[in-house]
């Protein structure tokens, strides 16, 4: 049985539809990507999962059970807009939030020390949040979301505003949580993170789920339209090959071509080989970024 089951949830605000008929399931130890442009209904979906808003129709189940107060202690939430009490000590507020989630103060204290140790910032225990840098505040915020060992974790834009070192650190931590059996709902605008972390995704557009499934399946649905070719010298006349839409010359050698269909790749290779040895040739599957823009951008018109 999956940890989190969302079944055809619908939410209307007045005559405006925020989420319409969304269904998905997250297994234990899985990171599920929830993608969509701004205002597509991601936050509303997350708020419904968190029990802040009741769906107008549909059903959300946590380990098979409907929403109840007991569910709260197994949920963890990292909101998009970060916020902590600026003038209160890190330890005080994290322990407070952990206690609200039903943890004992002693256990929470042990967990907090362990997490601070893990992030290599044990000295923050007694510091006020306003004394910390933005990136470090975000680490504290992350700790606040996971301090009570939640079974279901909701991360809204978890890595925004972090430097690459800290992104790596948090990404590793998220993977460890996943491997520990936590179900994670993950929302971001950074597609490379989704490709790295998520097994299944939903792309939402204007309150509707427009694309759902595993990343692998989704990618096979989209034609391979990019070809990379590189040789020692210049390759002339690539743009004259039928089926080639656009040629981009890379600064450090090589060409990136956009083609009508994957088969055009073969004629590109033939064309290049005539002019000399080719040291790189690849027909690329579409990136999630392209798929996203295609899905959301096209239906936008």
């Amino acid at each position, binding site marked *: 049985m999956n940890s989190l089951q969302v079944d055809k949830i619908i939410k*209307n*605000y*007045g005559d405006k539809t925020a989420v319409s008929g969304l269904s998905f399931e997250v297994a234990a130890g899985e990171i599920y990507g929830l993608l969509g442009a701004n205002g597509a209904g991601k936050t509303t979906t997350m*708020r419904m999962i*968190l*029990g*802040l*808003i*009741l769906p107008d129709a549909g059903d959300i189940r946590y380990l098979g059970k409907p929403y109840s*107060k007991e569910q*709260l202690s197994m*949920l963890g*939430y990292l*909101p998009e*807009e*970060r*916020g*902590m*009490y*600026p*003038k*209160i000590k890190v330890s*005080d*507020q994290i322990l*407070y*939030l952990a*206690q*609200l*989630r*039903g943890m004992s103060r002693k256990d929470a204290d042990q967990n907090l020390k362990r997490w601070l140790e893990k992030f290599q910032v044990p000295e923050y225990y007694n510091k006020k949040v306003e004394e910390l840098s933005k990136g470090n505040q975000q680490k504290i915020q992350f700790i*606040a*979301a996971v301090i009570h060992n939640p079974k279901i974790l909701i991360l809204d834009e978890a890595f925004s505003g972090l430097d690459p070192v800290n992104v790596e650190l948090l990404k590793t931590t998220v993977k460890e949580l996943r491997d520990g059996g936590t179900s994670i709902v993950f929302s971001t605008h950074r597609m490379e993170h989704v490709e790295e972390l998520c097994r299944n995704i939903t792309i939402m557009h204007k309150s509707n789920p427009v694309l759902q499934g595993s990343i692998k399946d989704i990618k096979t649905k989209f034609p391979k339209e990019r070809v990379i070719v590189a040789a020692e010298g210049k390759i002339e006349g690539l743009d004259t090959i039928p089926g080639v839409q656009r040629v981009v010359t890379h600064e450090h050698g090589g060409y990136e071509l956009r083609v009508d269909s994957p088969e055009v790749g073969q004629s590109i290779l033939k064309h290049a080989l005539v002019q000399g040895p080719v040291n790189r040739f690849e027909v690329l599957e579409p990136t999630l970024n392209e798929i996203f823009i295609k899905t959301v951008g096209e239906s936008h018109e």
Partner: protein
Amino acid sequence: MNNSLWTVMIFTMRNKLRSKSFIIMTIVLALLLVVAGNLPYLIDKLGGGDKITKVGFAQGQQATIVEGLKEYYAKLPEPGVELVSIASEGELKSALEAGDINGYLSFAEANAGGFPQATYHSKSAFEGGTASSLTAALQQVKTDLVIKDVGLSDEQRAQLFAPVKLMTEKVSFANEKGKTEEEQGMAIGLTYVMIILLFMSVMITGQLIATEITAEKSSRVMEIIVTSVSPLKQMWGKILGTFIVAVIQIAVLIGALVANLTMPQNADILKNFGVDLSTIDPKLLVFAVFFFLAGFFLYATLFAAVGSIVSRTEDLGQAVMPITLLTLVGFYVAMFGLNQPDSTLMIVCQYIPFFSPFLMFLRIGLAEPAWWEIALSVGILIASTLLIGWISAKIYRVGVLMYGKRPSIKEIVKAMKAYKV
């Protein structure tokens, strides 16, 4: 899950009690009250009571009047004025300059009434105390002189000057015996103290509750908190926590005041003023506690509701303005009612829940409202406190998740429907 209410309460209290501004404010207020508590004693010690003003006069000038003045001051227990004879009129000024005397009297020629125009000369034109004392003395001397001319006997004279005595007693219909003047005075005092206390605590803690909720919202901690604990528990945890902090603060302040007032040097002086803390009616104290609690929670929930719909601390002042005005109106109607507890305004306003904590208590203390008036007012107050608490909780529930510009009532109602609360 009731311990989450407890957790919110403890957290609120801990942060308030630890904050520097709270500690400093309490200490400063306590020090002010210690000074105020010792004021009767300090006035007695520092005041002009036992300082004697030396008033010079030129020897030989208007001897009868001067003699009368001397007799008058000799009879007073604390004269405050000592008449000093100076050799001649010319030397008076130099004696004043040298500091031998504090001022001097001069007399012009007798006018038509037969009593000369007297002038008191001093370094400062504002020596009101001495001047009025001299006026009273001269009046007495003049009266004596006239009486002597008429030729009344000493007995008739004593009768003329015997003061009239008027006793006041408030008639009570409920109790067998009416309140004495002292009890009445204590009731006024207690009413006054209670009204100011309620007003201050509502203003200060109400603002505090609203500010904290808005701050939680604007710092977005709210999003995490509402996913951990039900908004209702959070709101009440906050109100109760702040309430306990306010009670602790009030206890410290009243403790400081009462401890100083009951110190031996002050207690005697207070007794002279007719103030005796033991004459306070215990029934009145019970009402004081009740109306304080009801008034506090009525306003606190309102402040919480308003705090929850505002997203930015900058907008809060404007948003709480209506509530602030309500408390102000209640306070000033009460101040007016101290003198006229039975006016129509008071009788109407005692049933309005926003004013009744101030006014019904005042009427119980100072007037004699019928039992059904009290019951009706208390009933309305309790019902509306519960109702407003309930509505506030609903507003709070949707308010905490609404960001952006301050929502209109219509938008709040719409949101309530959407959130199914």
